[in-house]
């Protein structure tokens, strides 16, 4: 067998480049009259680019005052959740080629949290709910001298909810959270689920008690917005339903 040679370089082809228009919902708190407004930028992007790349191009080449969060830029840190074309996604995981480029790409801050500047929102209410479900191992007794063992089956029980990166895409896609910021929100419930169903944890009762609150899991209307929004593919609504079920089986 001899290796067949194909015609070089020419068949590989260049990555196509095209113009994209980004339409930002901006807000400047230091302006004389702080009012949200829309602003459009057109940049040249490549076929392999993500929305974040186009945003970088705007910030680095056109308008340095455009403000947004991003850290790792690879879908792990959860900093750049934003509302892109009406859907909550991570700018670093949304490819331009998957969007309709004949129209401007509409980019807004995530809803339901106070906007600090442009796409940066105050995440404190979100993290306050997260802290309230006690997202840490609660275990009684002596400190073990070796690791706490767990069977693969027990580990698999809560595997889905360990994937959360706390980007707030789910919580800020929830219509109940939009109208009432008191609601714990899907992310806090997901992180409670991660410990409630952990065989090594002994704080399930306290966590369920917290989530049985008036603003707890019972405000969930199972609209599945959170499951659709999650960039990690966590079945958020299912996790919430499991927490509800655990509460009911505990009560009867």
């Amino acid at each position, binding site marked *: 067998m001899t290796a067949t040679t194909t015609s070089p370089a020419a068949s590989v082809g260049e990555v196509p480049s095209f113009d994209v228009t980004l339409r930002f919902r901006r807000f400047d708190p230091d302006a004389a009259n702080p009012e949200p407004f829309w602003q459009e930028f057109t940049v040249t992007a490549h076929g392999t680019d993500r929305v974040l790349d186009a945003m970088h191009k705007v910030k680095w080449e056109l308008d340095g005052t455009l403000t947004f969060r991003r850290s790792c830029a690879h879908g792990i840190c959860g900093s750049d959740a934003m509302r892109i074309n009406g859907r909550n996604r991570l700018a670093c995981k949304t490819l331009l080629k998957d969007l309709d480029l004949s129209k401007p790409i509409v980019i807004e801050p995530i809803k339901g949290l106070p906007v600090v500047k442009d796409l940066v929102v105050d995440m404190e209410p979100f993290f306050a709910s997260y802290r309230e479900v*006690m997202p840490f191992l609660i275990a009684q007794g002596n*400190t073990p001298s070796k690791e706490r063992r767990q069977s693969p089956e027990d580990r698999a029980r809560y595997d889905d909810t360990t994937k959360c990166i706390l980007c707030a895409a789910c919580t800020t896609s929830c219509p109940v959270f939009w109208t009432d910021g008191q609601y714990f929100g899907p992310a806090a419930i997901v992180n409670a689920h991660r410990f409630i169903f952990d065989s090594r944890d002994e704080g399930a009762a306290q966590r369920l008690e*917290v989530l049985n609150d*008036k603003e707890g899991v019972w405000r969930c209307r199972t609209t599945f917005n959170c499951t659709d929004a999650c960039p990690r593919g966590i079945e958020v609504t299912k996790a919430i339903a499991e927490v509800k079920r655990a509460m009911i089986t505990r009560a009867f």
Partner: protein
Amino acid sequence: MATTTPTIAAPRSPHRSSRTSWEMYGWIFMRASGALLLVLIFTHLIVNLVMGGGVSQIDFGFVAGKLAKPVWQVWDLLLLWLAMIHGTNGLRVIINDYATRTGTRLVLKSALVLAFTVVVVLGTLVIFTFDPCPVGAPADLLPSFCTAG
């Protein structure tokens, strides 16, 4: 060396009694009554509209005949109460979700409670005090068992 896990303050202690499970029971009621209502409503519809003479059979005599039987009295009473509580609770939740101003909430919820009370009281009253054989009514309009009239 610490040999025990560090003690974690306040929120760790169980506080079972301080919270009520009102919202949980409300949620369970919505699911249970919803499932029950499916059976109640569809049986009601089939008996009234499909079985026997169909839609054309419904007249005073038909309704009076049904309401004279204890089974249908209980059935209709359950239907009335469950549907009204289910619907009212659903609307209460929607008002809580979407009416942000206290005044709006108060007005909407008052109207809701008023509507609920009127319908439930009136309906219950009719089911229990209904007279299938009113005196002096033409015999051809009355159910078959009204021989005395």
